[in-house]
């Protein structure tokens, strides 16, 4: 049960932190259609956060709400991947980070629709619809920008090199992953790897981008609460009002 709670926090925190990062773009996108798409993606992810952390709070049964989990935990208690907390950089980094996560997220949610937990299956089914679209959009843009101008190609390649070492954590299994996999709640993450590799391989090839040679699992620990230095700043900003006005209703 603790494993289930922790695992739900991982799901919710990934959505929350990636949603936060993407929302930082609001009003600053390179073209109006992107402003809309970025806000929409962030909105979807915050919606998923409400569902995952809502369920986590229920499972915990300690009287905490989804908002308590989102706004009153410090960095050590956050369970998101390091990948999603990386700074936005330029749109190339933002997009590449999103694509590599979307490709994983899609496989994970697809598998979760068959979860032994009906609640999980239900949330996954709802989220999957939106994430299918995220993946469609991000892979399409990766292809177009990878195979666009020399500059857009170079930026996309640089972005890929930058975030690549953070992707392995998505598939790194620990005791919590094993426990929820054993309970049939979630798939074994390593089973998703070949699917992810295929999607990523195909998209990168079409985008004329080169898969980096460096290790893809150089950076991990986020799932266990050991984050990058960036997360603390995200939380200081995100949690300010709840921290400054404890108990207020908004």
């Amino acid at each position: 049960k603790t494993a289930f709670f922790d695992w739900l926090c991982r799901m919710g925190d990934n959505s929350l932190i990636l949603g936060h990062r993407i929302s930082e773009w609001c009003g600053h996108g390179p073209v109006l259609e992107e402003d809309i798409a970025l806000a929409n993606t962030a909105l979807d992810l915050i919606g998923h956060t409400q569902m995952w952390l809502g369920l986590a709070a229920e499972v915990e049964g300690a009287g905490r709400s989804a908002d308590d989990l989102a706004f009153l935990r410090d960095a050590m208690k956050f369970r998101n991947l390091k990948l999603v907390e990386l700074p936005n950089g330029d749109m190339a980094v933002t997009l590449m980070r999103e694509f590599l996560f979307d490709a994983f997220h899609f496989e994970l949610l697809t598998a979760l629709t068959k979860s032994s937990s009906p609640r999980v299956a239900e949330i996954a089914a709802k989220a999957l619809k939106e994430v299918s679209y995220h993946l469609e959009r991000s892979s399409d843009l990766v292809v177009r920008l990878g195979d666009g101008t020399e500059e857009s190609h170079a930026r996309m390649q640089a972005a890929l090199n930058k975030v690549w070492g953070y992707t392995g954590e998505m598939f790194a299994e620990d005791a919590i992953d094993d426990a929820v996999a054993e309970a049939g709640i979630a798939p074994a993450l390593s089973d998703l790897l070949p699917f992810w590799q295929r999607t990523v391989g195909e998209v990168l090839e079409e985008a004329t981008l080169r898969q980096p040679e460096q290790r893809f699992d150089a950076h991990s620990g986020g799932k266990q609460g050991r984050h990058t230095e960036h997360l603390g700043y995200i939380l200081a900003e995100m949690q300010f009002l709840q921290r400054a006005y404890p108990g207020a209703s908004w």
Partner: protein
Amino acid sequence: MSPEERAFQERVDRGEKIEPKEWMPEGYRKTLIRQMGQHAHSEIVGQLPEGNWITRAPTLERKAILLAKVQDEAGHGLYLYSAAETLGVSRDELMEKLHSGAMKYSSIFNYPTLTWADMGAVGWLVDGAAIMNQVPLQRTSYGPYSRAMIRICKEESFHQRQGYAIMMKMAQGTPEQKEMAQDALNRFWYPSLMMFGPSDKDSVHSAQSMAWKIKMNTNDELRQKFVDETVPQAKYLGLTVPDETLKWNEERGHYDFAEPDWDEFFEVIKGNGPCNEERLGARREAWDKGAWFRDGLTAYAEKAAARRAASNVAAE
């Protein structure tokens, strides 16, 4: 008036909609482009003051609502640029004029959003004033503009209710929250009144625009309507409108109220508002930093078209 112009005016008078390919006076076209462009710019610049609080929204629900709202605003920008494009001006041209300062956006967005209560005040007062302006424009004479307005108004009134809900929470919250709510009202009251523009006595283009049904009401009419609707809402919230002269005038059937400081208005228009530089700077920067992105998509589209053409040739 030429015969064409007369015929045009008669159509407008009968309440017919003018459509893109149809003949229209050059002044009508120009005025529309200016007005629709300015409105579109306001939508996209308007993302910024609210975007300022997305990452700090106090609950997940509020964050989602705010994201949806900002997304809507970008969407409205898109409708309006598209509607303007039917008049023969491209979105990029309009953007260029925004960035060079040749075209304006609503000066309300040059005021900062300083506390969470401002998300309430912006929704309640700023969207409220915008709706007041926009509702009559659903009946404007230019077809694409009218249709865009119909879509937009539906969403805006939703935004206004959400803003009012935030104000309600704040006004009924802790003493600090109530203080923020009152402060937000204090700061946004007069700038909201300014949104209707200077008194019609001082407005040059008004008469012609009204004849063309590009403008449906006078600025003063709309401002009065806004005050009459908003004052009771403020009372209901338990907040005080920052105008000591505010008083119900039984005879007129309206509230008497103080004019905003028009010197401030013109200062802000001139670029000396609290956030002019930040807002325009943010948009310019977004545009400049996004050049490689837009160029990349264009280059891909051209390559893809060339590849399709080549494969068509090969297939023949």
